């Protein structure tokens, strides 16, 4: 058996629907059509009345889900693209994010954001929104990088009482395959050492984990052992695992696919600089997409986001210091 990242997301939703009758799926064309990326393929037929098409209004989708969650349901909202979730910011940030603090009543919604770049998708269908959501209190933001995490973290997202922003990477949908669905899992909030090393720590998440692993393999040929940390969830952020890694290597490179300003990489470096300054043998670096809208042209897109080449160059520069 072989299962893709996208199929794992579908399987997790099927299992959630099966095991918890409070779960329902809400989104544009998620029903008979099976979703823009077929992440809900066949689920409407298997679970009649629980996989519901919505109008093209992200604001209304999330608003309705919040209402249902307050009343005890466990809705999963599918955005067609992460980029369009900005239309629902008021519902997600102001209503869902603050609800428990205001009322002591939890708001357990899961918002699925098909995130990140694929070739030729351009500025409105390629963005990564995790930094924006992580900025606001009250939300859990997860960024699975593996088929296993895509499956277990979605199940955890549904089970958690807080609103969870589930950032699934579109590039990984078909490119990533596993032999089978996982039995064990790491909890949300715990990072994973994707590759152990001793010379440099690359701290990253989502699709950039794989680019970084490519770099680590490539640099092993030159005698460098690069450690790759997959953050898994950017909020909560597992500072302990990051610091332990920097303690081993003394060098930190943070890589993120999203824009550079502020953001997850900046947060990781701020924490390491504050708590682990004495561990650093070189100034920490970060690598992000360029601070411009995401280009359509495949060559420009390649130059815009970090890839194994630019990560490798940054890593080598950092190792030279």
């Amino acid at each position, binding site marked *: 058996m072989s299962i893709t990242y996208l199929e794992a997301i579908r399987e997790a939703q099927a299992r959630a629907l099966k095991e918890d009758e409070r779960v329902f799926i809400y989104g544009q064309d998620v029903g008979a059509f099976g979703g823009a990326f077929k992440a809900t393929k066949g689920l409407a037929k298997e679970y009649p009345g629980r996989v519901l098409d919505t109008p093209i209004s992200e604001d209304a989708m999330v608003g309705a889900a919040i209402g249902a969650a307050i009343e005890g349901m466990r809705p999963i909202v599918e955005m067609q693209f992460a980029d369009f979730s900005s239309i629902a910011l008021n519902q997600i940030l102001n209503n869902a994010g603050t609800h428990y603090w205001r009322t002591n009543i939890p708001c357990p919604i899961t918002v699925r954001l098909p995130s990140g770049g694929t070739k030729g998708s351009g500025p409105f269908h390629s963005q990564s929104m995790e930094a924006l959501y992580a900025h606001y209190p009250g939300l859990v933001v997860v960024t699975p990088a593996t088929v296993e995490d895509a499956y277990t973290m979605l199940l955890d997202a549904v089970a958690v009482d807080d609103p969870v922003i589930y950032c699934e990477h579109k*590039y990984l949908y078909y490119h990533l395959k596993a032999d089978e669905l996982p039995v064990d899992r790491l909890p949300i909030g715990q990072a994973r050492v994707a590759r152990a090393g001793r010379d440099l720590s690359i701290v990253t998440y989502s699709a950039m984990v794989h680019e970084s692993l490519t770099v680590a393999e490539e640099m092993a040929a030159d005698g460098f052992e690069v450690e790759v940390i997959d953050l898994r969830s950017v909020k909560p952020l597992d500072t302990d695992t990051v610091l332990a890694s920097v303690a081993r290597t003394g060098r930190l490179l943070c890589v993120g696919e999203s824009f550079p300003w502020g953001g997850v990489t900046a947060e990781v470096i701020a924490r390491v600089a504050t708590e682990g300054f004495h561990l650093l*043998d070189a100034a920490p670096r970060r690598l992000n997409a360029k601070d411009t809208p995401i280009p359509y042209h495949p060559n420009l897109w390649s130059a815009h986001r970090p890839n*194994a080449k630019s990560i490798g160059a940054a890593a080598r520069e950092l190792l030279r210091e």
Partner: protein
Amino acid sequence: MPQIPIIMPQLGESIAEAIVVALKVKAGETVVADQEVIEVETNKAVMSVTTPCAGEIASISVEPKETYAVGAVLGYVEASEADAAKFTKTIPEPPLEKVAAEVPGREEEKAVAKRQSNGAATKTMPGGLPVPAKTKGAGFLSPRVRARMEELHLTNADLAGVLGTGAANRVTVKDLENFLQSLERHSLGEASALRNGVADAMRRSWTRPLATIGSSVDLDPVLTDRKQRDPKPGPALYVLRALALALVEQPAAAGKLVGNRVAQSKSIDIGVAVEAEDGIVVPIIRAADKASLGELATRYAELVGLARQRRVLPDMQAGGIAAVSNFGSFGIEWGTPIPLPDQTLLVGLGVGKKTPFWDETKNAFVPRTEAQITLSFDHRSLDGGGAGRLLQRVIELLGAPEKL
């Protein structure tokens, strides 16, 4: 005809790149095998890159003053099939090429030798540790190295002998650990508290630009005068007394520069260096200008006694403006002793020796006991002229010891 690349060779262990210094050939020139065609410089030496085989220079693709990685193609030789067959050097495979095909957006990339606009950072680096030819980052100690040094009570001076592998040979934490491991091959013992104290004082003092001047001094008047006194002061004490009187006349010489201000002590307190077990202590004689040589001799004897028993308390060593070191007592003629970190001046006295001296009045050489007297000073506060006048005055005063 085949074109054979001219490659930047592996120039030595842990050398990753080199700067092109000179091109000795042009395109179109005929060359023989192993002919020196390009001169390159690393931080260790100037070396030559040679042709891989005989032929004609097809192209030279590098420019002087630019930095190129080991393994980079610097040009091509157009060779006959027969000569090309003798070509034995191989190009190291660029590591990036292997994965280029598998990673999105990388199909168009060809791993080529990258020319650097300046040597401070190279984009390609073949195996081995990187050693850039530039000095950016030299002397930098990372927070981690500093933290580790603090943990082990190490100072910068302890790392003086470590050639680092970081940028511009900076010491990385790995270098530090390797160095510490290498120490295990030695026999290791604890340094005494006094040794540590002296080391610390000397290190702090050495942060300043120190200079030393010296001259001969006739010791016979002192040695004659000494016999008539009771208790008998040592020559170093005559020097101390003469220095105190000279400083009364030239107090600015002992001024201490702190930031953009000069601190001038109101009392002429002068220390005497005394050797103790595994170190040196410098007890201070207060107001040395106000006591007679006889009184000084008594106080000096007491202080030396205390110093030898290591009972000189910290406040007895604090606050002097100058010190005297009698290194002549070790049979030494000349030295450049280091002033104490909180003092500007240190006068040293070498061993007295019978020397022929040209006497102008007798028009003949006469024997005299001569010693070398030195003045070490902080050149921030004092210049050669000021230091010279002070030392000359001390020598003059030593010529009339009965007045001291």
